[in-house]
């Protein structure tokens, strides 16, 4: 019987024929934590009494509050650094960037199984790897044993057909899907994204879909690896890590959802849930105080290019604060080289060091009471950006950049559509 991508990878990692619904113990290739979840993982790792970390690719990221904004967090960072030295893990330190971006650039290979103490660990699904978020203790045990237990998820196949209209991006595709199936529409399941519209997306655009799979509750958001994946690996100097991962033709899916992407318009997720999806026209009167372009969803070089193209030789509207944050050191360097940073700064923006920055509200960019932020991030829950009295709208980098110029939520192609 045929297998989905999830079943294929998990079968390989548990050494037997794994089907949806089975409980298995699977080998962990990559384990990651970040500075908010790492300290608890470390303490529990030591409580259990493990002597060293097993997966060679165990990476402890310092990205959520980097550089540290408080003494308590500085101490947490040192706990992480000392632990890594003692037990043989890799530290990705202040300035390296967001865990999910750096993992894509440096560590993940198609066919891998990754567990990460961060919910957006599902980002790597776009590489044809089974990558999923768990809590600190699950990851601590994965680090210590080199394995984890899993219930093999059933898979919902999402087939994206047709061609995206101008000014519509993969962010709009995933917002559309989440609006359609709801924030728990894929709870416990894997999503598999297929179809010609996926084939046509670059690897960077695909990461956006997998990254936000968890916003529909999914355990993983998988995409078969192909030439785009190989190109990406080549660009980051790891072409030899390429491997083809595909579902079988006769794989069994719980459900198939077909979406013609040609019908999708630019989308907005309105406060305070990610499935509160609107067309821009429905929220076009919303005035914005802050625009945030960055995060593990849309802080890649291709995102910054799109935003810079819109902002070039222009100024953000009066009263709008523009914050731009490259997702990694490499993205930052590329943006400097390409002159994008110049464009952002000249447009009136500020650049934050690679990391999560304003996304989770433990760093700069916290909203004031009643303020509105339009962000390229993946979540808009009440309090997410540090103030429960703030309002967060989510959109693509193009919508964010255009809106920064106008001062209210605007379509990139305003007036042209």
């Amino acid at each position, binding site marked *: 019987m045929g297998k989905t991508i999830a079943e294929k990878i998990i079968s390989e990692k548990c050494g037997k024929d794994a089907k949806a619904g089975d409980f298995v113990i699977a080998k962990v290739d990559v384990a990651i934590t970040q500075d908010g979840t790492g300290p608890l993982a470390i303490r529990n790792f030591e409580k259990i009494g493990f002597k060293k970390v097993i997966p060679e690719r165990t990476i402890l990221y310092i990205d959520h509050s980097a550089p540290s904004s408080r003494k308590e967090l500085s101490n947490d960072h040192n706990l992480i650094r000392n632990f890594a030295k003692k037990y043989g893990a890799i530290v990705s330190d202040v300035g390296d960037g967001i865990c999910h971006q750096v993992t894509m650039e440096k560590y993940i290979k198609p066919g891998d199984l990754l567990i990460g103490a961060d919910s957006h*660990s599902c980002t790597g699904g776009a590489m044809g790897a089974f990558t999923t978020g768990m809590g600190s203790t*699950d990851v601590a045990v994965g680090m210590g044993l080199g394995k984890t237990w899993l219930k093999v998820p059933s898979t919902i196949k999402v087939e994206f057909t047709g061609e995206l209209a101008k000014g519509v991006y993969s962010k709009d595709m995933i917002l559309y899907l989440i609006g359609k199936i709801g924030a728990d529409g894929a709870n416990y399941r894997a999503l598999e994204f297929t179809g010609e519209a996926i084939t046509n997306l670059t690897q960077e655009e695909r990461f956006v879909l997998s990254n936000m799979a968890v916003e529909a509750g999914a355990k993983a958001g998988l995409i078969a690896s192909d030439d785009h994946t190989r190109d990406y690996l080549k660009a980051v100097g790891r072409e030899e890590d390429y491997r083809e991962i595909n579902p079988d033709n006769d794989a069994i899916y719980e459900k198939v959802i077909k979406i013609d992407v040609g019908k999708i318009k630019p989308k907005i997720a309105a406060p305070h849930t990610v499935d509160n999806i609107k067309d821009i026209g429905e929220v076009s009167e919303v005035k914005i105080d802050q625009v945030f372009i960055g995060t593990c969803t849309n802080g890649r070089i291709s995102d910054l290019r799109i935003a810079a193209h819109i902002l070039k030789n222009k100024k953000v509207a009066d009263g709008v604060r523009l914050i731009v944050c490259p997702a990694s050191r490499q993205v930052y360097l590329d943006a400097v080289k390409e002159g994008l940073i110049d464009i952002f700064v000249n447009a009136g923006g500020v650049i934050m060091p690679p990391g999560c920055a304003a996304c989770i509200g433990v760093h700069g960019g916290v909203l004031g009471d009643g303020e509105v932020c339009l962000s390229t991030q993946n979540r808009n829950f009440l309090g997410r950006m540090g103030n429960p009295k703030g309002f967060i709208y989510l959109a693509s980098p193009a919508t964010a950049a255009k809106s920064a110029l106008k001062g209210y939520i605007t379509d990139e192609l305003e007036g042209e559509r």
Partner: protein
Amino acid sequence: MSSNTLKGKAYIFGDNISTDLICPGRYYHLRSDIEKLAEHVLEDARPEFASEMEAGNTFVIAGKDMGLGSSREHAPLIIKVSGCNAVLCKSVARIFYRNCINVGLPIITCDTSKIKEGDQLEVDLSHGIVKNITQDFEINFDPFPSIMTDILEAGGLVEYIKKYGDFKL
């Protein structure tokens, strides 16, 4: 499980209680100080909850998609540390579900719609029954998968691995 009937009062919460509402990101710096962090449990869902609830005598009752959002295990951990007996909800997000079990906090999915604020409840974990003493009715729930029962019985994943040294399926 031995002593597996839990007793306490219902505190009602709604649908979509995200981990940001349970354990707000702005208290990030308190994550290595769990007792302090627990003073803010569920603060953005119900600001007075931490001061109203009674340790050892409280059930958190929620609607659908309980615990959606981030993977922070601190969310179920502070619910447990603050002294809640269990979480009852209509449905639960995946990572939160796993995390509850791993910290040793029973998480029960059942039809919570008729439970009212302040109802006295008894939860029998081994038979899968919630008794509503105040309103005099019972709700059944499915047992946990066996690996989760074992982890809960051990008192959480740390204790489970200490006891068995490995996963056993």
